[in-house]
């Protein structure tokens, strides 16, 4: 279940953020999403990602501290979605 959510998230990020030359299988669950390492997303990508999470999973990232934890990697995003869906 969790793995399928990981894969679903990766596909959403690749398709909706138009990431080129990268496959879902190449994204590691613990790779950083933002910054020079890992996926290399930036603050404007974050604008879209936050809205995408809300649209696809009906959970909201409301503030900076929540965002800092949730948007660290695919794993942390999955944790965040699972926790907030259960709540």
């Amino acid at each position, binding site marked *: 279940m969790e793995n399928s959510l990981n894969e679903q998230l990766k596909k959403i990020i690749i398709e909706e*953020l*138009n990431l080129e030359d990268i496959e879902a299988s190449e994204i590691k669950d613990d790779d950083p999403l*933002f910054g020079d390492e890992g996926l290399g997303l*930036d*603050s*404007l990508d*974050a*604008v*879209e990602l*936050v*809205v995408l999470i*809300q649209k696809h999973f009906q959970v*909201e*990232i*409301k*503030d*900076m501290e*929540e*965002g*800092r934890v949730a*948007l660290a990697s695919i794993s942390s995003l999955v944790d965040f979605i699972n926790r907030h869906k259960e709540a």
Partner: protein
Amino acid sequence: MTEKIPHNSENWSSRSVGANWQHRFFYLLIRLGGRHIAYPFLYPVVLYYLIFRPDQRLKSRYYLNLRFPGRTGFAAFKDSYRMIMNLSRSLVDRALVGICGPEILKTEFPKGDELFNLAATGQGLIILTTHVGCWQAAMIYLSKLKRPVHMLMQQDAGDIDRHYFEHSGEENPFHIIDPTGFLGGTVEMVAALKQGDVVCIMGDRLKGSQENSLAVDFLGAPVKFPLAAWKLAAVTGAPLAILFPLKTGPDSYRIDLAEVIEVDRKDARPLERLRPYLNRYVKTLENLCAKEPYQFFNFYDMWSGKIESSE
């Protein structure tokens, strides 16, 4: 001959050039006699900076050389004087509002209802601000909007220049979002807009990543403008209102709602698709600079950097 401007001030800072005691002196003057006492003391201060601090005077030339090309000598000096004097008066006005209360300024807002209605729809509203006039005059109106207002605002460590609400010891009526925080505060801005709040963002000053910008010709030369506001408008569906609070007299201001722009969701990506919207803002800003050349407070080289104009 045109004066040579040092290319060492492209890194803009919000820190005041005045010393702490100078600020306190003006606050005291305002408490004693308001604008009537404080304004005359601006003449020696402004003349000091114009004559004895050429480094400060020259900072006004980046903009003025493009706005008034070919002006030299006394005419150029006079332009710098008018611009620096206007900025100084707007700083006094800012303190005046905080110390004496907002009713001290006569502020008219001809299209105020339009802005209030936009905010009241609950679909979120982005107010695009610019370094023009005195924002404190507009803030009074913003506090009357029927939605919470968030401001993307950085105050440098050690900045002694106070915001208007700090004078009266009041709590800040607006929620401040720190642009130096995680991902430039974008997470908080999205959350605010999605819950129907108002977010104020400066549109004319690029801080942080140079990649999240587009170069557009402004006054005949390319400038990199930030895209965060436009991206937020595209992704959240919130309309974007361009406001200019202009000084119209010694104690009067007029807030111009220059334009309301809606950004289509499909234009969120790639960033190049935001260019037509950004062009509209820059054109509006150029029109303002044509009508009110000394109320655009630019004191750094926003045209710096080797930027290729795409136009």
